[in-house]
């Protein structure tokens, strides 16, 4: 492989790692807004009968929260396109916090 080919490959590679366009960001924000609207609907349980079931409501809310968290972290905070060390550092802090506080809540019999 000569240098010209390699440089071209690098350029193509960089393009594929480009950050989303402004319109992509708007689309992500619209999706986030739509998810928030569904979350709020669960509060008005009469709007959607299925949300009268507490266990289903809680599970749905947690899934929607995780999706929103993922979208903001990956696209707005650029974790998807940035160096993976940042994902590891942030994910490490998040995982440590989750483990520590699940243990703490369990110690106080929160789940009982």
């Amino acid at each position, binding site marked *: *492989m*000569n*240098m010209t080919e*390699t*440089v071209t*490959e*690098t350029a193509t*590679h*960089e393009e594929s*790692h480009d*950050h989303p366009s*402004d319109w992509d*960001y*708007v689309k*992500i*924000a619209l999706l*986030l*807004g739509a998810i*928030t609207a569904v*979350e*709020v609907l*669960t*509060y008005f349980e009469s709007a959607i009968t299925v949300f009268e079931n*507490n266990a289903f*409501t*809680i599970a749905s*809310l*947690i899934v*929607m*929260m995780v999706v*929103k*968290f993922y979208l*903001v*972290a990956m696209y*707005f*905070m*650029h974790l998807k396109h*940035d*160096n*993976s*060390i*940042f994902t590891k*550092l*942030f994910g*490490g*802090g*998040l995982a*440590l*916090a*989750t483990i*520590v*506080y699940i243990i*703490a*809540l369990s110690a*106080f019999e*929160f789940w009982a």
Partner: protein
Amino acid sequence: MATATVDAAVDSHDEGGHDDHGTTTGISNTKLAMWVFLGSECLLFGGLISTYLLYKTNRGPGPENTVIPTDVFDIPFTSVSSFVLLMSSLTMVLALSALTRGDNPATRAWLLTTAMLGGVFIGGQVYEFTSFIREGVGFTHNPASSAFYTLTGFHGVHVSLGIVMLMSLYVASKQGKLQPKHTETVEIVGLYWHFVDVVWIFIFTVIYLIPVD
């Protein structure tokens, strides 16, 4: 030789190391520090959220009819505040995108919009706290209210600090001190702002929306 050098760069890129900041890691130390800080902030907010979860129905030793935050939540109002903060993340990322293009007027407009949306969120929080106090939910009235005000108050302070940082960037841009070469500075402030947003995503669901038994 030249091919080998470029190939090495490609390999480095494949591993995710496409930044070159002249540091031993090849990535910006400032940005690295911000991510470490944000990782540690997860532990701070994790502690505050866990404390609230433990005390959310604790009315304390006072009279049985003492009011706790869950009795007076105004979900439609808080939903609007949450939506405002969520949209501020969009305007923040558009500010960064505008600076990358070298479009300084657009950068200033988006920075100012982000700060204003943050201000609307803080205004909403002040209104919420004021109405809660009127309804009898004081900071020291019961463990549930103390945990609630501490958690949401800490988040509010973070948003306020973010507004100060955004306005500093706005002033710097007005003075011509914010150029495309300073993209990383805006990106780092943006990381902080988005983090404040993701924390609220968590708080809104866990504290406000998940039904209390």
